[in-house]
């Protein structure tokens, strides 16, 4: 089975983002970028499936600016076999990404698509569900356990009340949650090897997909700031303040 792993280049999770002064978005120039942490978990899971013999080939795919090549190389260094970049000027919205990915699925015929449940920039949590919809495939979201069987994929999902188990008819789309695995670091030899792995570049026109935005950004602003309050020295002082000052207990 072939598995497709879509990945996204985002601001590194440890960087504090800055809003642009013209309110058009978040400052991306000269900011450290990295693979979205949930995408790392998806790549790792695909590699483990390959190591256990359920998967023969792993293709990482990204839709975004040319620099997304770096993110794809990270996936290749972790252990993916080849990469596809769908190059766009602006990062496409989730629905457009899902349409681009569908076009790639139609060309590559993977038996499974594994991707992160959300990207930590837009926090949309949509792309995997939308891709499954466009393909008419089964979907397992927020997955913390995954087992590939002959005719189905068994998943455990993290839901608000606890955990839920589903059996998905193959082929499937699975979006991964934090506790599925601990992604590996790429070793230096593997980073060198990744430079020689194939990376194809496509564009939305070749794939016949209209990626024009449906949402217009009116403004992006800082959230209301919360200021630090006072320090207390004892439990009695804390209880007194909660009771008589804040009046919350």
């Amino acid at each position, binding site marked *: 089975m072939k598995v497709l792993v879509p990945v996204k280049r985002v*601001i590194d*999770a440890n960087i504090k*983002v800055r809003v642009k002064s013209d309110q058009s978005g*978040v400052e991306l120039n000269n900011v450290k970028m990295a693979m979205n942490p949930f995408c790392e978990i998806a790549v790792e899971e695909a590699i483990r499936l390959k190591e256990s013999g359920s998967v023969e080939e792993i293709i990482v795919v990204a839709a975004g600016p040319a620099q997304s090549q770096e993110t794809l190389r990270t996936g290749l260094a972790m252990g993916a076999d080849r990469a596809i970049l769908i190059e766009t000027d602006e990062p496409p919205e*989730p*629905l457009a990404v899902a349409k681009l990915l569908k076009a790639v699925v139609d060309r590559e015929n993977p038996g499974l698509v594994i991707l992160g*449940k*959300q990207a*930590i*920039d*837009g*926090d949309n*949590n949509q*792309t*995997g*569900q939308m*891709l*499954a*919809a466009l393909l008419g495939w*089964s*979907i397992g*979201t*927020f997955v913390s356990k995954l087992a590939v069987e002959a005719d189905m994929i068994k998943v455990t999902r*993290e*839901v*608000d*009340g*606890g*955990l*839920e*188990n*589903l*059996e*998905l008819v193959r082929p499937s789309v699975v979006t991964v*949650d*934090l506790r599925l695995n601990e992604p590996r670091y790429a070793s230096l030899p593997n980073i060198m090897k990744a430079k020689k792995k194939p990376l194809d570049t496509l564009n939305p026109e070749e794939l016949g997909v209209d990626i024009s935005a*449906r*949402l*217009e*950004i*009116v*403004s*992006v*602003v*800082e*959230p209301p700031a*919360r200021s*630090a*309050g*006072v*320090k207390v*020295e004892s*439990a*009695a002082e*804390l209880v*007194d303040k*909660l009771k008589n000052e*804040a009046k*919350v*207990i």
Partner: protein
Amino acid sequence: MAILVIGEHDNSELKPSTLNAVTAAQQLGAEIDLLVAGSDCSAAAEHAGRVTGVGRVLKAESPCLADALAENLAPLIVSLAGDYSHVVAPASTFGKNVMPRASALLDVQQVSDISAIESEDTFTRPIYAGNAMATVRSKDPIKLITVRTTAFEAATEDGSASIEEVTAVDDSGLSRFAGEELTRSERPELTTADIVISGGRGMQSGDNFPMLERIADKLGAAVGASRAAVDAGYVPNDYQVGQTGKVVAPDLYIAVGISGAIQHLAGMKDSKVIVAINKDEEAPIFQVADYGWVADLFEAVPQLEEALDEAS
């Protein structure tokens, strides 16, 4: 035009998240229908009929809708959506799972997790873990929206809407529900509790969480946790408060042994009053805390328990 709210329920009653979604819908228009799609869900439909502001309850019953499988529920939403200007669901794991599937089938770019409604087509939502607020205008003919439940009050329950049956869909046969392991608790639900007490990596072990549970029981609070505490296996996943876990905004949030990573703050910084107990006075949690107590939690929490006893 009318608004369709997708009800989250367990076939016997509505989940509180639905009440927040109805309030958001009320800000969009006066005519509100509430969909209750399930199996043997008459009790949930009757509950839906009591929600203030709801004009009609649409009840769709089929065994294949019992467990809210997205593959079966999304086509039902699509079949109804043409009569509405907006389709609204809570941004719970239920809404996050099904709404994007319906959106893609309708060729609509969903707007996720909105925290404010500026106009019928313009919405504000947190991005980058709440470190920026984006206001976006949707150009799609139908708006599909998920709602941050903590940003909208719960609708009251003194209405009397009619219940109408709608045609259910056929089973897609794509997936099968195979059981669940739900956390049972006598305490209030995390996302709706007035008071939340959460533990972090500083708790050192799940065996130490009963310390927090005793305080929770004195205050009628829910117990939560940081991602670090969940990843370390101290408590189950559904305790997690943060960017990718649950978003809470109680009257009082007590953070114990939590450093205050960006992704945790994203899940609790809209709480009215925040208390932080941490032995590291440089911990970022103190930058958002109304009351900070620099102390070893293993000494401080028992003292807090005593002080609460004395004050009551």
